[in-house]
């Protein structure tokens, strides 16, 4: 029996729904990066040394939006909010399965590019606390 992929999530930023370019949403859970190293115990044997690099324990949330005026103004306000944005991602598939992730203290770190054109989109990336 097959399963249905979640391809149509809803994105709410600071309590307002955001119209997104379909299939443009991506995020990381904020679980960070880990390192695995080998320690020699002699005789050719190695022991695993596992470590957690908590410097990387932040989530990234990327999406694309169309360059309409409301979206551009919203984008400007998210940038002005510094790290006081809240993003809620929700999704439900046709078989009733749901997904919900919240990204607290989200911030637009880069100076995003506003592409104005008839078939252009604006790509934005938030950094936030690890998704809950």
């Amino acid at each position, binding site marked *: 029996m097959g399963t249905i992929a979640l391809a149509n999530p809803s994105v*709410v930023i*600071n*309590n*307002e*729904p955001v119209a997104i370019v379909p299939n443009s949403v991506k995020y990381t859970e904020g679980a960070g990066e880990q390192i695995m190293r080998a320690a020699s115990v002699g005789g050719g044997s190695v022991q695993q040394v596992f470590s957690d690099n908590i410097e990387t324990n932040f989530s990234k949330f990327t999406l694309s939006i169309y360059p309409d005026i409301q979206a551009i103004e919203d984008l400007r306000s998210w940038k002005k909010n510094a*790290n*006081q*944005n*809240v993003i*809620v991602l929700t999704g439900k598939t046709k078989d009733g399965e749901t997904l919900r992730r*919240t990204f*607290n*203290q*989200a911030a637009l770190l880069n100076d995003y590019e506003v592409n104005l054109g008839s078939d252009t989109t604006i790509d934005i990336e938030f950094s936030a606390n690890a998704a*809950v």
Partner: protein
Amino acid sequence: MSTELPVFNEQTKEPEEITFKLTKGVKYGNKGNEVEGTFIKLLPPTAKQLKQCVPLKQAFCRAVAYVEDKVSDEKLDNIKDDGVKKKVDGNSIMSAIYMSDVDMYEVFLHAKELFNSNIALMEGEVKMTKPMLEDMSNDDFENMIGEYMANFIVASLLTELN
């Protein structure tokens, strides 16, 4: 009771705001974090909310006319309690509208637009938005409509009825 006593304007004696307590908390974003709200502050409507208020007031008037037409005088007298008529409140208003031929779905749609127009503040701070309204329980949403109508939209009509 899910609503605190309204705050009245000292000069005009009209309610300035009411606090509606939620039975089920609603999650929302505030100052960078997702928190749970437990009450909503409701402000009186202005001419800006005319488009949403007029149909609600009309729905109530149609409901009253329907009830008076369909219910016998004897039954109307039975609402007296110890010789005093029961006060018409939010619950009574919603019950009356439900019992009439008014389209409740339209009432809810107008109410949703009304609460989305800067007169409802979660925890007295954050403007209610569509996602927040959609997260409310049905009971809370319905009771909030009733209390808002009782205190602001049909208040002048209720004075006459009471």
